[in-house]
């Protein structure tokens, strides 16, 4: 519901002050495009595109000009450690590399909110730390909100607010 992929049975979800109830499919798509980045646990990359094209897709949707787009993609793929695999088809990348493409895609357009499902689960320690640093920098410098689920204490240690779930319910004492 926070991703405007579904609608609440009752109540209202607001993203950056925008109410999400009663939106048409097109308006909901525009809201997701402009405000939200997703990192899915199983990556959900577009299989027939390269790492570069996967990141580029969202930026094209946003209408970012070609020159700026090129610079943003190069920077973000470099930041997630894929500078040498930008033009590789994502099906030829390892699970960790695909995870990094998914992260790059989610943050490249500087969304207001990034919803990430286990963003460091498939990454080695060094890469995981690099991603955590990337998230911290974006949060500090651009005010991007990261909402993520994680079993990784390095990630949960970063959070300004942590909600602990046990069997799908909020754990007693969790804030």
């Amino acid at each position, binding site marked *: 519901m926070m991703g405007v992929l579904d609608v609440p049975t009752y109540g209202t979800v607001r993203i950056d002050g925008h109410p999400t109830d009663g939106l048409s499919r097109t308006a909901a798509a525009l809201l997701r*495009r402009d405000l939200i980045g997703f990192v*899915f646990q199983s990556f959900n990359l577009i299989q027939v595109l390269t790492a570069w094209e996967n990141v580029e897709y*969202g930026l094209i*949707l946003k209408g970012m000009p*070609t020159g700026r787009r090129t610079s943003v993609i190069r920077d973000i793929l470099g930041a997630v450690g894929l500078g040498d695999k930008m033009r590789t088809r994502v099906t030829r990348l390892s699970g960790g590399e695909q995870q990094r493409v998914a992260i790059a895609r989610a943050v490249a357009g500087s969304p207001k909110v990034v919803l990430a499902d286990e963003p460091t689960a498939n990454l080695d320690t060094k890469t995981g730390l690099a991603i955590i640093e990337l998230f911290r920098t974006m949060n500090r410098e651009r005010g991007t909100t990261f909402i993520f689920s994680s079993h990784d204490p390095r990630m949960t240690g970063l959070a300004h607010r942590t909600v602990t779930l046990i069997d799908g319910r909020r754990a007693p004492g969790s804030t």
Partner: protein
Amino acid sequence: MNTLPFIHIRIALRNILRHRRRSLLTIAAVAFGIFCLIVFQALKTGLHDKMLESSLGLDMGGIQIHAPGYEMNMPLLRPLPEPETISDVLDRLGLHSSSAPRVKTTALILAGKRSSSVILSGIAPDREAGVTFIHRTIRAGNYVPAPGTLLMGKALATSLDLRPGDPVDILAQDSFGQPARTRLTVGGLFESGLRRFDLAHVYLSIDDARTFLDTEPNDVTEIAIGTRPEAVDATVAKLHDALAGLDLQIRTYRELAPDLVQLMELNNATFNLLIIIVFTIVAMGIANTMTTVIFERFRELGTLAALGTNPGQIVFLIVAESALLGMMAALLGSMAAVLACSWLAVHGIDLSHFTSSNQYFAAGSLLRARLAAGDILTANAVTLLTALAAGIFPAIRAARMKPVDALRSV
């Protein structure tokens, strides 16, 4: 520049290539559809060409000019008014060499104890050759009837036991309605390919006919004009303008031979029905492929929606894939069809076993394909429209999905 359509086309193309075997099967099925459409159309055009060539070139021509009421009673000679004026008009319209003046009546031909009723045509042989193909079917003697001779069908000569040089008597009704009789010599035999025609037609020079039927020196009862079917209407309009003051009956082959026109229209209707059936099957094939594609990629489409791709853009993506399949198939099918039609245009299909007694194939039984550029374009347009139509419903279905359901699917 917004490059979204281009990246969607790139995705569509790569998805087609990702499932090569399935894509090839779909492309082959659609290509077969367009191949059938083009080849059948070319054969139908060739068939109609042959039917028109035979029907118009045997005797009728594309246009005929008569005095009003001519068809009511042929033995009652009705000469055209002002034949010199008509001749001048034909010259001015550039129709001299493709128009044949005739004096035509029914007659009885007597050979000893045998006889047969025939249509007797007095012709100007040099002009007649611009309208009919009888001059190309001479089997004995001469085409140009010398004074005192006649040209008859070989089948008629056989039935009357006649050979070139044999005498025959002709009985007819002259221009005053009186019985007339003359003796002529068989000068030549023709074999048009249509036995029924050969049994019933004899030719003599137009001067001999005028003398025999006691007409005025310039009398003509019929002018046949060998105009191509596609030029008939324009020519008739010019003739009506130029001959407005004369009481004439100017008719096209469509009025003279409605059976021919109806048969061609029946062919067209049957062909169209066949094409509708073929392309319905083609459309179902594409729709089936695209539905499978959408089921397989439901999760990917959900991801695109999550990224902010709106329903219209998802429709475009799916339809682009369908259209690309259609375009590849159209290219393949068109190339194969052009090759097949080129071969059929040279070698043809021999239909003599089926057409030896058919008036529509008197000029020959070899059916050759004739391919028109417009037919290829139409076939390609039909194929692409079919592909688009077949893709649009699965695409709309994909666009209506709830992203959350699509992302949950395995």
